[in-house]
């Protein structure tokens, strides 16, 4: 039932396909514009200065926590266990899936309701549970739509951002027999009815974790719809899956992140619901699950810790702001990245998770414009991470201790050779000047009236990087006379005259 990702190796082809889909692009543009506006409005409302101070504070907490992650994680686990939660550890996604399937079997589950969680998407839990004969139902409306359609999410906050109402109405008409012309209210109501029956029937609820608190052993889950509240309070057993990076030291620290996350992501001052859960119920007459299990997942994250630049990617609170702000994401959406984590943060996390060689295109799927860094509530320097990963790509490194050694693709020979040649050409002044003279001579083949226009573009196709440019854009050719030539012949002398000197023969 669950769909599969596009190939992560082929961002180029995936992106081209997305660019050819006007419906998708229209939806993306409306959505990302709207989120951008709302984010700005929410920040203006609280005052930009206050917000900036909060961002600094949040990042300082994350940095300090990650620097002593083992201590905080152990404290969290001890506190959660003291309150009756059962904590399990999983090194890999497969290990986590096995563990979760076992827990569900132990609870005698047939139906499992899931609330939206990127971590469970990352480990492809839905498919794993189905393989164990369980019905796994996504309950976030967007996720449920995606599940019905057999697709994968394309945004970390709004999973079905790429689908139009008409497409969803057609899907529901097919699956639920609703009116094919139904509006969003009727569609939502139809989903509500179906999902209420699932909530009532499910033996196990599986959620993610937005933050875990070391001080108290609590976990926090944010949402707008109420499905996470159902998932974590109605079934007898609640299982929460969290990456090792989710821990914050103090209960009060939650306030800082709650002020940042919804404002950055959806422009809300706070999402409708936060469930802050500590242990299963103790009083049999209380509401809530009898058992609470917490699965702590590594799945490659600990590898990010040794360098400051990569460690920063663990500070991410998955708000989605960088996706909305990214000019690349705005054009192609999430599927092109071939990963559960799309957009700028996906472009830096995915290669670290699945291998730099395998996801070697993703670090280049950015113009390095820095819009992501500008909006990131925890100030992750995503462009710096992209540059770091680009270097790993060209130098053939995988993160130390990663299992991807064997997957390494051969270095990009053509590009490498190109840059070696370029380097030879620019390292010395004479080579540079002769090289440009040669290029000036050569360009006469394609430059007309100072530009490579449509006509020149045909010929340019023979030289791939040039053709890639001129296929859609004119290219200003080399000027007949370079600046340095003008400097030598006129500009420099003007300066000397200004100083009352006469030009000497020698040049520096």
């Amino acid at each position, binding site marked *: 039932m669950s769909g599969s990702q596009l190939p992560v190796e082929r961002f180029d082809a995936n992106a081209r396909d997305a660019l050819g889909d006007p419906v998708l692009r229209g939806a993306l543009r409306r959505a990302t514009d709207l989120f951008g506006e709302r984010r700005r409005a929410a920040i203006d409302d609280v005052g930009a200065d206050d917000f900036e101070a909060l961002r600094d*504070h949040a990042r*300082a*907490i994350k*940095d*300090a926590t990650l*620097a002593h*992650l*083992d201590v905080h*994680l152990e404290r969290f686990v001890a506190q959660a266990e003291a309150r009756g939660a059962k904590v399990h*550890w*999983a*090194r890999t996604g497969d*290990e986590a899936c096995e*563990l979760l399937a076992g827990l569900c079997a132990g609870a005698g589950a047939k139906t499992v309701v899931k609330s939206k969680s990127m971590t469970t998407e990352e480990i492809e839990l839905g498919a794993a549970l189905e393989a164990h004969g369980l019905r796994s139902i996504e*309950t976030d*409306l*967007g996720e449920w739509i995606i599940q019905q359609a057999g697709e994968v999410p394309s945004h970390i906050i*709004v*999973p*079905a951002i790429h689908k139009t109402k008409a497409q969803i109405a057609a899907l529901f008409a097919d699956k639920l027999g609703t009116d094919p012309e139904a509006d*969003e209210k009727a569609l*939502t109501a139809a*989903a*509500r009815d179906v*999902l*209420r029956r699932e909530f*009532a029937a499910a033996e196990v609820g599986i959620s993610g974790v937005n933050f875990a*608190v070391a001080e*108290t*052993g609590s976990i926090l889950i944010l949402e707008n*719809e*109420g*499905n996470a*509240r159902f998932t974590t*309070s*109605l079934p007898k057993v609640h299982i929460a899956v969290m990456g*090792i990076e989710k821990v914050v030291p103090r*209960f009060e*620290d*939650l*306030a800082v992140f709650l002020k940042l996350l919804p404002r950055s992501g959806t422009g809300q*001052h*706070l*999402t*409708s619901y*936060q*469930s*802050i*859960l*500590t*242990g299963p119920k103790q009083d049999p*007459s209380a*509401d809530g699950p009898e058992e609470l299990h917490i699965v702590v997942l*590594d799945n490659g994250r*600990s590898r*990010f*810790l*040794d*360098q400051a630049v990569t*460690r920063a990617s663990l500070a991410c609170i998955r708000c989605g702001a960088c996706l909305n702000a990214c000019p690349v994401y705005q054009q192609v959406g999430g599927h092109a990245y071939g990963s559960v984590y799309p957009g700028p943060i996906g472009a830096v996390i995915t290669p670290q998770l699945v291998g730099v060689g395998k996801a070697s295109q993703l670090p280049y799927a950015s113009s390095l414009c820095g819009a992501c860094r500008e909006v990131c509530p925890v100030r992750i320097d995503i462009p710096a991470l992209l540059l770091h990963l680009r270097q790993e790509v060209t130098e053939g490194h995988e993160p130390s201790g990663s299992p991807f050694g064997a997957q390494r693709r051969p270095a990009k020979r053509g590009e490498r050779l190109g840059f070696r040649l370029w380097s030879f050409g620019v390292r010395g002044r004479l080579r540079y000047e002769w090289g440009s003279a040669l290029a000036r001579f050569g360009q006469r083949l394609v430059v007309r009236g100072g530009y490579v226009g449509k006509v020149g573009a045909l010929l340019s196709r023979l030289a791939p990087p040039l053709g890639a440019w001129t296929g859609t854009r004119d290219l200003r050719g080399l000027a007949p006379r370079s600046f340095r030539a003008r400097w030598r012949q006129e500009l420099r002398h003007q300066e000397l005259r200004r100083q009352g000197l006469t030009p000497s023969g020698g040049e520096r």
Partner: protein
Amino acid sequence: MSRAARETILGAIRKRLREARLGEGLPEDRDAVGPAPRHRLLDADAEQLLTAFRARIEPLGVLVHEVGGLDEALELVRARLRDAGARTVACSDAAALSDLLSRELEAGFQAVDPGDSEALFGADAGVCCAQAGIAETGSLVLDADRERHRLVSLIPPLHIALLHRDRVVPDLATALRDALTEGRAPTALTLITGPSRTADIELKLVVGVHGPKALEIVVHGD
């Protein structure tokens, strides 16, 4: 398996952090991070807090009523239930609400046990008290160790919450601090800010997707 996994993961974290310490160095621990920026509402009085609270929550379509004492509050709740055409009503076990439904029953309304989830799916409204309100965000704070309202506030389509006017705190940090008892967090602390909503279809707002379609807050206290 999990034991071994625990050792492997913690070992990997420690090894990486050791390398980091030898390399570029690492920041000090959390305790070295100063206090969070102070929220401006921390200096506000009770009336200003309530005004701020309303200013945040009302734009989300939440009705806020201000009344005097508890009796008046209960009277208003009954009137709102009648207006909404609620026939079956679930009420939390809060002492303050113990009289609410006795009179409703006389009027021919049906009471639903707050712990009976099956019956709750058929209820028209749920009524409870909120343990606090947060001015900064317009949120209600529900502490499940004080009152049985975890499902009452979630399943029925209309949720009415009573909030004492002295219980509006300035900001999130204060609310969280207040929720701890000697460093212990409640089993379930729920923050509620507006009705259940979604924008998953073309970003068009729809309320009442899984949780309540409508939220009303009755602020009481002389």
